[in-house]
């Protein structure tokens, strides 16, 4: 786990990185299939 932290920018946790990587799969699949910026679906 410590080794992984070395690859992450300061202040970013492994959990946060995991969430971003997982979300990328789903938003990209949505974008490729229906042609929209899927990321906006999670806007706060």
């Amino acid at each position, binding site marked *: 786990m410590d080794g992984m932290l070395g*690859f*992450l*920018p*300061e*202040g*970013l946790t492994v959990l*946060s*990185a995991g*969430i*971003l*990587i*997982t*979300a*990328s*799969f*789903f*938003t*990209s*699949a*949505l*974008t*490729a*299939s*229906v*042609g*929209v*910026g*899927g*990321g*906006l*679906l*999670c*806007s*706060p």
Partner: protein
Amino acid sequence: MLALMTYLIPIAALIPVHGLVQLGSNTSRSYVQRAHINWRIVRIFLFGSLLGALAGAILVVQLPAYILRGFLGLFIITIIWIKLPKIENPGPVLISLGGLVTTFTSMFAGATGPIVALFLNSLFNEHRKMVATHGATMTVQHSLKVVAFGFAGFAFWEWLPLVFLIVLSGFIGTKAGTLLLNKMPEEKLKLCFKIVMTLVALDLLRASFI
């Protein structure tokens, strides 16, 4: 991705890192769907985008996020559900103007994908050509944005390992989404597009009021 990133990434790095991630994911999408890209439209779009990026880099004006979200939400709902006159063979000026305005906006707001998608949607009869060309035009936009932030001194190298993994995951997602695109009938895709875009717009409106 942009909205999710606002919870997890420092605000100062948000727009540049989002731009880099989107550059990677749109490049991969363009590669996977390259056979359907309309390169003439991309070239014309690039011309306007260059002017938009230049103007955005010069003008340091930033509207509050809630105004941008509210405007974008209303704009999307209007375009999707109100029947507009069909644009027959739109000329280079109109396409280039779309590149200029959306790239300019992208320099401040980050995510203009839905606006570009709506703009291109009126230019294509076949949905998969619209999706492929949309990927190529967004690659153009995010390339210009990354170059601009790079010249401004943003340290992209710190974020490269994470961005690589996000883009890799996105590439796999793109392959899965493209399989769906190729299997679904054209009419169903268009209906899905309208429904998803409406959900996006409603969420943007909700976010602008809360």
